[in-house]
C-alpha cells in the first residue's frame, strides 16, 4: 500500500514542466479576471480626481442648481439630472408593458415555431447602433409623432402641464420614445429568461386548481418571478440612464427643467458628449467630469440592484446571464 517512488520518479521533468505552465496559465487568467473589476475602480478614481475642482467649488449645490454658464464659470447639473431621470422614466412607462407582453407571449402563449424567430428578432433590436436609432428617430419617429401622436394626445390631455407648448420635434417625448424602443429588447430578453426559470410545477399547481392559462400566468408565474422581472425593468432603466447618442440627437439639448413632454430637455450623457470638446477651462471640464461621476454612480447602482434581483429568482442559476 505504500507509494511507488519508482513510478513517480520516472518522469519528473515533464511533471514539473506541466506544473509550471499550469501555474503561469493560472496567474495570467487570474490577472485578466481581476483586471476588469480593477478597471471599474480606476474609472471611478479618474472621474473623481477630474471632478475634484468642481466638487470643491460648488459642493452639493451642483446637484440642485440650474445655471450652466461656461462664461461666468457657474455650473449646476439639475436640468441634466432631471432630463436623464424624466426621459428614462418615460421610456420605462412605454417599454415595460410592451416588453413584458412580449416575454409573456413568448414563454406562455406563443406556438412553438414562432418562439425562436420572435425572440431572435426582438433581441436583434439591441444590436442596432445607437446612432442609427437617432437617425431613424429624426427622419421617421419625429414626423410620425408630429402627425399621428401629438395631435390626439393634445386633444385629450392638452390641459395637463405635461403637454404644454408647441411640438417642434426634438423633445423629451421623442427622446423617451426612442429610449423605450432601445430598452425593450433588454427587458424582454431578461424577463423571458426569468419566466422560463419559473418551475413548471408552479404553472401546473395553478392549472390544476382550475386556473385558466392567463390566470395561471397572473397568479402564479408572474408573482414567482416578480423579483427577477423587477430586476429586468431596473436593468432597462440602467440602459436608459446611460444611453447617449440617440437621445442626444432627439431630446433637443436645452439646459432647462420643464415638465412638458413636448419641450426639449437635456441628459447627463448628452451634455458630456456635446460639450467635452468645447470645455476649454479647467472648471468647465471638471464640471463635466462631475456629471460623469454622477451618471457613473447612478448607473452602477441601478445595474447592481437589477442583477441582484434577477439572480435571486433562481438561486444559483444565472438567470438572464445570456442577455446581461
Amino acid at each position, binding site marked *: 500500500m505504500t507509494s511507488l517512488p519508482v513510478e513517480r520518479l520516472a518522469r519528473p521533468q515533464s511533471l514539473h514542466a506541466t506544473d509550471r505552465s499550469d501555474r503561469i496559465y493560472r496567474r495570467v487568467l487570474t490577472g485578466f479576471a481581476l483586471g476588469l473589476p480593477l478597471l471599474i475602480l480606476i474609472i471611478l478614481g479618474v472621474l473623481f480626481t477630474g471632478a475634484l475642482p468642481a466638487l470643491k467649488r460648488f459642493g452639493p449645490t451642483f446637484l440642485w442648481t440650474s445655471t450652466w454658464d461656461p462664461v461666468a464659470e457657474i455650473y449646476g447639473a439639475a436640468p441634466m439630472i432631471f432630463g436623464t431621470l424624466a426621459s428614462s422614466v418615460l421610456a420605462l412607462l412605454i417599454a415595460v408593458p410592451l416588453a413584458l407582453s412580449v416575454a409573456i407571449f413568448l414563454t406562455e402563449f406563443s406556438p412553438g415555431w414562432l418562439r425562436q424567430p420572435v425572440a431572435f428578432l426582438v433581441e436583434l433590436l439591441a444590436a442596432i447602433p445607437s446612432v442609427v436609432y437617432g437617425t431613424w428617430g429624426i427622419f421617421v419617429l419625429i414626423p410620425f409623432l408630429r402627425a399621428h401622436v401629438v395631435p390626439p394626445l393634445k386633444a385629450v390631455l392638452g390641459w395637463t402641464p405635461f403637454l404644454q407648448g408647441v411640438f417642434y420635434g426634438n423633445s423629451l417625448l421623442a427622446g423617451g420614445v426612442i429610449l423605450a424602443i432601445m430598452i425593450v429588447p433588454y427587458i424582454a430578453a431578461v424577463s423571458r429568461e426569468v419566466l422560463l426559470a419559473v418551475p413548471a410545477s408552479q404553472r401546473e399547481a395553478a392549472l390544476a*386548481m*382550475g386556473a385558466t392559462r392567463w390566470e395561471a400566468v397572473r397568479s*402564479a408565474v408572474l408573482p414567482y418571478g416578480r423579483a427577477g422581472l423587477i430586476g429586468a425593468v431596473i436593468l432597462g432603466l440602467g440602459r436608459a440612464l446611460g444611453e447617449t447618442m440617440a437621445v442626444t440627437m432627439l431630446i433637443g439639448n436645452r439646459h432647462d427643467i420643464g415638465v412638458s413632454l413636448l419641450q426639449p430637455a437635456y441628459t447627463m450623457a448628452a451634455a458630456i458628449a456635446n460639450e467635452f470638446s468645447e470645455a476649454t477651462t479647467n472648471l468647465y471640464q471638471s464640471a463635466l467630469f462631475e456629471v460623469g461621476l454622477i451618471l457613473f454612480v447612478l448607473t452602477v447602482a441601478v445595474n447592481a440592484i437589477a442583477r441582484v434581483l434577477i439572480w435571486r429568482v433562481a438561486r444559483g442559476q444565472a438567470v438572464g446571464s445570456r442577455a446581461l
Partner: protein
Amino acid sequence: MTTTASDGRTVGQPALSAAKGSDRTASVSPTVRQSDSPTPVVESRAYNFWYGANHALHDVTIAIPPHAITALIGPSGCGKTTFLRSINRMHDLTPGARRTGDILLDGGSIFAPGMDVVALRRRIGMVFQRPNPFPKSVYDNVAYGPRLNAMAAPREFPDRVERALRQAALWDEVSSRLREPGTALSGGQQQRLCIARALANEPEVLLLDEPCSALDPIATQRIEELLVELKKTYTIVIVTHNMQQAARVSDYTGFFYVGQLVEFGETEQVFTRPIDERTEAYITGRFG
C-alpha cells in the same frame, strides 16, 4: 394493515387479466363484470395515449370506485403518472400528445366538446410529486382556489381556509402562522398545505402523484393517515412507487406495466393472490 373495502362494499371479481396486446376485447370485459360494484366516479374506456410517436398507454380500462383509495403502482415509466394526469386533462398543454378512448367523470366524458376544462379541474384536485406551494402566505395558498373560482363571498374565505387546513391535518401546526410564507414550512407540511389547497376547491376526486416521494418516513406516515381519513369524503387516486404504501393505505390497486393496466382489483387480492404473473413478479420484488 391492509385496508380492504371497508364499508362492506364488494367489488365483483375485478381481475383484469392482461391482454398482452393480442386480444383487445379481453381488456374491456372486466369492467363489464364490475357492474355490481358501486358506480365508479372515474372510469376510463380503452384509453390510449401517445407522446408524439411514443405509445405511452395501451387500452387502459379501469373503473375507480367512489370514497375509496385507489393506488396505481408499477415500475418507472410504466404510464401510471401519465394516466393520472389524463384524468384532469393536464396533458392538454403537452405538445404532441394524442389519445383515443375515453375517460368519464360521473358518467360524462371529460373530453366532450362542451366540457369546461377549468370546471373539470375544479372537480378533480391534484397534488404533485414535489410540494409546490406558491410563494405566498399559508393563508393565501389555501385561499387560492376559492378566490380564483369565486366560490364564495370573500368573508367566508377564512372559514374555508380553516376547514381545508383542518381536513389536511395541518391547522394545529399553522393556525398561528397563517401569514408566513407557505414555502417556509417543512417538506411534509408543505405537501399537506398543497393537499389543503386542493381541498379548498371542494373537489370530488383527489389525484396524488407520488405525494410522499420527497418526504421522510414520519411525514409520509402523516400523509397516509390523512388519506385514509379523507377517503370518507373524497375519491382518491394515488400513484406510488412504494408498494408498502399501496398495501397500507389503498382499497384498490391497479398495476401498470409498459403502458398497460395489467391487473386491477381489491388491494388485498392484488397483493396476496395476484392473477397475472407479472403482478406477482413485481410485488414480490423480482423486477422494478
